[in-house]
């Protein structure tokens, strides 16, 4: 009985150890696991965006909702996905605008049911919802300006070298201004290039604002003068606050046809609040001015508003204000246009500009645009398609050549698969670090895939080489070559990180990421896969 049991134990023991041995043979090496895990993480980061898995999702994405609008109050928020309106399914931006344009504006308030992914939202209005939408991004890979459209400017001070503090001030003022203009998707930063020049780089995704050049270049020097005395200037030292987006204190007042009858002009008016210092200055200056003899309601000298040394408006000063410390001042101006609509829009635009420079103050120097690119998104979409086709064609033709050379189907297929995986990992990392892929970055991906192919050939070739060395030793030999080549490419890319105002950084970074992934992740895995094939 006892002995029998011992026998059984031995049997099970044997069975287990046999099993373990088998398991070990099949177990994937650490390098292959690492490769698989990183590939999976990359796939996740590419295909799962903040809006979930959207590859096959139909609908439109809400990019922005006007604050305090009826749409906002009804519960529409940025980031929601609209799938249907009034029960009619919305697949893309064309569906959306067709439907909305047909329905709005309507005579009276109508009910609109907006179906989002999570809920139904009901609006009553005679105007279209105050939202902007876009097609849903299918992946979380972002493309650069040259592919997705937008504007980019490199800006310098005219005839002046800016210090690092000055350029940082410039960046924050410009950011402020562009925000006041209502531009959302903007990126402004200071750049130092290889020759020590400092630039401000402005990138605006999507549509290019119409007067971008003047918007960036305008120095925005605001002065309010009585005679030759400056009462106050733009910026928060003199102007405590500026009313905007509030119809009670900032509005377009009257629109009229001008005397010639050929054009219209509209007047705008908004309130600003002066700082104590500026208000006191106003009191001191007005105190010395007499009352107008012909028009006794007002003082004899007006308040004149200058923007960049150009007179934009003349305001008569009421006699009650003489010598008074007033902090509240109404600023006015106008806009003209061929039609009343145009004049209204021009007045709105001018009001916006004036408000902006009153808030942000002026720059102490003139700006010069060294480079301005405004790219239409239309061609970029085609580019991406062609680049994918070109990449696949290149990959297939290279693989055919490898197959012809080595006549090993399994190994040749592995080379293609590993290269494909490498592209996915590069894209995954680009998605994780929020990198915008531009044409230069794509060239970088191609470059690293090219070196990847070369490296795999070296490994394949070493491993097939007939010699007394073990496969492990052969793969080690291959890695000596690969690492050497890796370091030479790595160091040769470093200068590009800074050269040319950083515009070629995309190439340098993607290539460095690409070749590093290759050398540290995919190539070791490839070596191990070859070993397994040998076994």
């Amino acid at each position: 009985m006892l002995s029998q049991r011992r026998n059984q134990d031995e049997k099970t023991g044997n069975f287990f150890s046999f099993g373990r041995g088998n398991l070990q043979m099949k177990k994937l090496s650490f390098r292959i696991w690492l490769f698989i895990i990183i590939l999976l993480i990359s796939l996740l980061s590419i295909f799962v965006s903040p809006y979930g898995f959207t590859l096959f999702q139909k609908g439109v994405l809400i990019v922005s909702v006007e604050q305090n609008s009826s749409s906002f109050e009804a519960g529409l928020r940025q980031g929601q996905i609209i799938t249907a309106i009034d029960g009619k399914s919305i697949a893309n931006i064309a569906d959306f605008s067709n439907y909305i344009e047909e329905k709005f504006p309507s005579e009276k308030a109508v009910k609109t049911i907006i179906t989002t992914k999570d809920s139904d939202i009901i609006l009553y209005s005679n105007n279209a919802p105050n939202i902007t939408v876009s097609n849903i991004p299918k992946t979380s890979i972002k493309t650069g300006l040259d592919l997705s459209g937008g504007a980019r400017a490199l800006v310098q001070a005219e005839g002046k070298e800016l210090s690092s503090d000055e350029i940082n001030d410039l960046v924050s003022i410009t950011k402020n201004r562009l925000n006041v203009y209502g531009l959302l998707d903007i990126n402004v930063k200071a750049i130092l290039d290889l020759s020590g020049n400092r630039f401000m780089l402005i990138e605006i995704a999507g549509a290019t604002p119409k007067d971008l050049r003047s918007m960036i270049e305008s120095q925005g020097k605001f002065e309010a003068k009585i005679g030759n005395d400056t009462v106050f200037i733009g910026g928060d030292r003199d102007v405590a606050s500026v009313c905007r987006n509030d119809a009670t204190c900032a509005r377009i007042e009257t629109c009229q046809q001008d005397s010639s009858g050929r054009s219209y002009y509209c007047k705008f008016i908004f309130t600003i609040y002066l700082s104590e210092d500026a208000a006191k200055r106003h009191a001191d200056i007005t105190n010395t001015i007499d009352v107008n003899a012909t028009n006794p309601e007002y003082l004899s000298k007006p308040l004149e508003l200058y923007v960049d040394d150009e007179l934009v408006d003349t305001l008569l000063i009421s006699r009650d204000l003489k010598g008074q410390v007033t902090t509240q001042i109404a600023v006015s101006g106008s806009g003209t246009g061929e039609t009343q609509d145009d004049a209204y829009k021009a007045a709105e635009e001018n009001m916006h500009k004036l408000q902006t420079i009153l808030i942000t103050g002026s720059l102490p120097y003139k700006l010069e645009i060294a480079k301005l690119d405004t790219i239409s998104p239309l061609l970029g979409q085609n580019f991406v398609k062609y680049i994918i086709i070109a990449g696949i064609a290149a990959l297939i033709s290279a693989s055919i050549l490898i197959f012809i050379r080595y006549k090993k189907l399994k190994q040749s297929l592995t080379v293609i698969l590993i290269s494909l995986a490498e592209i996915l990992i590069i894209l995954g990392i680009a998605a994780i670090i929020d990198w915008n892929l531009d044409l230069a970055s794509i060239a970088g991906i191609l470059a690293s895939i090219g070196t990847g192919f070369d490296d795999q050939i070296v490994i394949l070739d070493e491993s097939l080489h007939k010699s007394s060395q073990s496969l492990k030793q052969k793969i080690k030999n291959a890695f000596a070559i690969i690492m050497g080549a890796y370091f030479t490419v790595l160091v040769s890319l470093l200068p590009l990180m800074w050269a040319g105002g950083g515009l070629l950084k995309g190439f340098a970074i993607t290539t460095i990421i690409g070749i590093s992934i290759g050398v540290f992740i995919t190539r070791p895995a490839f070596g191990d896969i070859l070993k397994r094939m040998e076994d």
Partner: protein
Amino acid sequence: MEEQQNQEINKKNWHDKHYKTLLLIPIALLLFSFVYMGIFYSQHHDFFLKDISLKGGTSVTINGNLDTPSLKNALIDKFGEVNIRKISNFVTGEQIATVVETTANAEDVKAFLEDYLGYELIEGENSSFESTNASLGKSFYNQLLIAILVAFVFMAIVVFILFRTFIPSCAVVLSAFADIFMTLVTVNLLGIKMSSAGIIALLMLIGYSVDTDILLTNRVLRRHDETTLNQKLLSSFKTGVTMSLVSLIAVFVALLFVKSFSSTLDQIFTILIIGLVFDIFNTWVTNVSIIKWYVISKEKSG
């Protein structure tokens, strides 16, 4: 079978006899390149012709189908030197845009084009504008030249650290230099105007050209097995040429697809193809001869 082996031995014997003489070819080519570049530099005061991204100017892409020849004539009358090309759909061949490049500034070109076309060009919608002012172009150019120089020096340092032997390291650096230099001469002979993308391609060439040289040097100096020098050379030749051919075919196929729509990628790929061809030559003639000479003379003295 025996005949084949004999042939192979004969072939190797031929190389054993003539490998030093073979070095005359790269020397002659390099001499020609230096003389050509000397003349080129004295004529243009530069190492290559620059496009507007390095010289300053404006590139306008007008969406849609246009009659390019008559537009070109009108532009030449107004602005002098003008470059114009079409972007067409790869499948249907239908023209989807026209690219105009001039050294004039964006406002002037825009005003002229709007006048010529009779409609407003809305930047970023029906057209794309890319303008660089002359001083920025010049500064880009200078920096990229420095970048190439620094990259080359860095590469050379790594090669010397890798092999720690003077002559073989020099051979690698020399053949990388010859690659880039000969490629540049060919670019000039073809009259290609270099953009900043072209300079990127030259940088990529540094990487592409040294990897076959590193392979060769590594096999010859580091592989300690029973194989002879000629066998090592032959085996690395087979690997290296496969690498270069695979890269060549991949780049060539990619070029066919992108040529019609992206001047950036077109230029990168064209320069890479030229460079890869010179790389095959410089690795398997220049570098092989030098390293063979080095190993044989070392064996004799040692």
